[in-house]
């Protein structure tokens, strides 16, 4: 296996040589001089150095430039020596690859700015077209697609010849097509083929490439390009519908998650719970605390931080909920409007308490690796955090629904909220059930906070930004109906996301509010209104 890698590197070195030969013939100066320039702490010198090193054909080039990208290239301004800190912590002299014992005290990482980062990427792109890692090859091919630099053609051809991974083959084919399309001396047949390949890619960038095709081309090519553009446009329009639908689902899931606890405390128990948002906030802060603990003590467990935070947030928020119920809410049953007053007061207290404890500013909650980034289905980008939140929300919903429907506690909860006095006479320990119900609603709000910490601020104001939306969702869906909350959340989410591109975020939101107002006129008890005598009784 080791030999295999070595073999790959040999090809790599060869290819670098190839690039050098084609692209920048005979750039003068010895390699050491070029490396030395990294020590100047000047962006344009660094830029020169990147070019020189990349095209030097020196086998150390790859190590140096990838070190530069990762901030592992250290330069000592006094001695003007440059070092590479290898990922395993070993330190070598950049120019000679000689190991050194330790870094000089004055050494600092070579600084980059965006321009340089692009230069580094381009250089690495050339250097990684033949990388052993298919993901890197694809990435490199894609940057070639964007730059469609003619000089890369031989390398791309070379890569394509040996490529076995399907996705990488496609990427190389597209890169090759992009180059050919803009290559002045490519034949018409080659160009038509290129247009077909680019059309097949079908995304925004493909379209940009085709529309960027300049004048004096043969008519056949122009019309082929126009046809391809039109086709891409049509498919993009379709995809954007899908995209909007996905965004809507995702927004809906956030709304649902925020509202679901309220569907219990407000929908089932009838407590106008203005402190609901603060329970969400507490959940988010639990996540923060968990991550802090992990960061300082067990950094390796970071990816599991959310898994730990979920039960903890449920317990903490639930316990606070039970405390609140026992000390305040229980005196207010049968007086729902007064719960508004007390819970509003409570929300002020909780906000300020958190502000006092954790400070008024945002706290950092990170995304574990499995919640970072995105993948694409066709032309739709789906971010992992949103996807997981959607799944999580649905799971929470299903569990809650099952709990209310099928467990004894669920039945007792509903009985108690419908007629507390009679429930007691049926032998139901109403105060216990009340406390548990409120605790459950609060606990669920808490776990919502864990999820929301992944996409929003963790600040004392977190809760407030969700409380109004949550009430809208519960009421729109129909109070007391969990399914209503589900459908309500997704309806509002999707409607919002289809309105937003047309009307803009602000007017879109206003439109949604007006729609809610009008909708309630049609269905004065929400989307999934409970009907019949039972309700009026």
């Amino acid at each position, binding site marked *: 296996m080791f030999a295999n890698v070595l073999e790959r590197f040999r090809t790599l070195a060869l290819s670098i040589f190839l690039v050098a030969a084609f692209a920048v013939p005979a750039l003068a100066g010895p390699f050491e001089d070029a490396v030395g320039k990294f020590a100047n702490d000047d962006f344009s010198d660094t830029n020169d150095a990147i070019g020189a090193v990349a095209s030097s054909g020196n086998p150390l080039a790859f190590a140096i430039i990838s070190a530069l990208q990762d901030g592992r290239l250290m330069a000592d301004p006094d001695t003007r020596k440059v070092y590479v800190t290898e990922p395993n912590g070993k330190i070598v002299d950049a120019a000679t690859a000689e190991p050194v014992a330790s870094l000089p005290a004055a050494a600092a990482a070579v600084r980059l700015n965006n321009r340089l980062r692009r230069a580094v990427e381009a250089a690495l792109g050339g250097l990684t077209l033949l990388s052993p890692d298919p993901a890197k090859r694809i990435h490199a091919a894609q940057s070639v697609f964007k730059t469609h630099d003619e000089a890369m053609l031989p390398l791309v051809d070379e890569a394509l010849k040996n490529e076995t991974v399907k996705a990488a083959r496609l990427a190389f084919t597209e890169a090759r097509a992009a180059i050919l399309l803009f290559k002045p001396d490519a034949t018409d047949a080659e160009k038509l083929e290129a247009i077909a390949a680019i059309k097949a890619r079908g995304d925004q960038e493909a379209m940009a490439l085709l529309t960027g095709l300049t004048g004096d081309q043969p008519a056949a090519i122009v019309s082929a390009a126009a046809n391809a553009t039109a086709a891409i446009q049509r498919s993009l329009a379709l995809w954007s519908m899908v995209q909007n639908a996905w965004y809507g689902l995702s927004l809906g899931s956030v709304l649902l998650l925020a509202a679901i606890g309220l569907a219990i405390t407000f929908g089932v128990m009838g407590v*106008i719970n*203005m402190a609901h948002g603060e329970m969400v906030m507490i959940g988010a802060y639990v996540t923060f605390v968990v991550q802090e603990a992990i960061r300082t003590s067990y950094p390796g467990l970071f990816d599991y931080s959310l898994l730990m935070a979920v039960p903890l947030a449920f317990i903490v928020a639930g316990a606070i909920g039970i405390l609140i119920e026992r000390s*305040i809410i229980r*005196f*207010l049953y049968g*007086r729902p*409007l*007064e719960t*508004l*007053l*007390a819970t*509003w*007061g*409570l*929300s*002020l*207290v909780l*906000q*300020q*308490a958190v502000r*006092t404890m954790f400070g008024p500013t945002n706290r950092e909650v990170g995304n574990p690796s499995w919640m970072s980034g995105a993948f694409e289905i066709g032309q739709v980008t789906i971010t992992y955090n949103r996807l997981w939140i959607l799944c999580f929300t649905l799971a929470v919903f299903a569990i809650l629904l099952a709990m209310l429907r099928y467990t004894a506690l669920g039945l007792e909860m509903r009985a108690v909220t419908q007629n507390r006095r009679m429930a007691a006479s049926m032998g139901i320990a109403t105060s216990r059930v009340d406390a548990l119900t409120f605790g459950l609603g609060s606990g669920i709000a808490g776990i919502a906070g864990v999820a929301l910490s992944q996409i929003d601020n963790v600040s004392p104001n977190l809760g*407030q930004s969700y409380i*109004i939306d949550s*009430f*809208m969702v519960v*009421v729109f869906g129909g*109070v007391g109906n969990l399914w209503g909350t589900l459908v309500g959340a997704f309806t509002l989410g999707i409607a919002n996301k289809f309105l937003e591109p047309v009307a803009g975020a*602000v*007017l879109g*939101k*206003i439109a949604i*509010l*007006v729609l*809610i*107002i*009008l909708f*309630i*006129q*049609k269905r*004065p*008890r*929400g989307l999934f209104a409970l009907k019949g005598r039972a309700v*009026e009784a």
Partner: protein
Amino acid sequence: MMPHVLTRSLDRSATVFLAVVAAVGVLIPLSNLLLPAGSMFQVPTYLVALFGKYVCYAILALAIDLIWGYCGILSLGHGAFFALGGYAMGMYLMRQIGSRGVYGNPILPDFMVFLNYPKLPWYWHGFDMFWFAALMVILVPGLLAFCFGWLAFRSRVTGVYLSIITQAMTYALLLGFFRNDFGFGGNNGLTDFKDILGFNVQADGTRAALFLLSCLALMITFLICRAVVTSKLGKVLIAVRDAESRTRFLGYRVESYKLFVFTLSACMAGVAGALYVPQVGIINPSEFAPGNSIEAVIWVAVGGRGTLVGAALGAVVVNYAKTFFTSGALAPYWLFMLGALFILVTLLLPKGIVGTFNAWWEPWRAQRITANAESAAREDGVSEPNPAE
């Protein structure tokens, strides 16, 4: 026709309330204007403005109590009517600035100049005339309430559904008024007023007059509310609150009743907002924030829902608490205090300050009244209370 409606509404506590407001309305401005600055009894100008604000809030609280306390309509969007009244007044005050704005444009307010408005938007016309602005102060909130209420009450939207759509209404207005395109100065709102009816808004005399006017408005609002709730209409409202559908079966057009008080209440809120703006010197979209409306409801609850006097008292107490707690050493903890106040009032004084007071006082008074009646009866031998008093 009118007088009996008024006389009927004046029981002892109502009279006392009116007397207190009148006294405050006269004494505070007098002391501010006549006594030398710094004397012990002189009310400094900043307090006049502050009290003026409280009085405006008290009017808003009365408006809310009328619909919530008596008719059971919990509006979580009454701040919208207050703010609309405020904007109507603010627009008048902006137009009064004339060419004294920073860009010196005689027609366009400053924010329009620098946002390149070619001309005054149509809805700004007429606001250079006080009478028109004053009319709009009542008409705009009233009309919005009428349309909104007409839709909602006819569709029989009740309870939390109504509360939440009122909230949606004020939230939508909040977002709308935030937009610079809306033509109301965006988030910065309307400020830097110069004068009102030719008097400098910042002059002590003007402030005193505005304060007096606010007290007067409070008294009138109170009288109207009392007249409404002590009439048979008031009983119908309570009936609607307690058993809406039963009231329908008795032949009352419930939606008309609700629409009437809702609109009336919105107009009152508009007046409150209009008086508020020149006294605090700014109107901005945050007055539409749902939280403001919720707080206003809370003033009413703290003071005592369904007691009118309590609503006004609650507004003053809560806002005074806010002023008090947000300064000095307590400033960082004021939310704890206010939050605790709300919680404690709910738990310990479930009927609010005045409601709880009444609950103690009523039985005692009832006893006294029966005692009096009995002794009176013994004296002149009549026991039947006079039916047509």
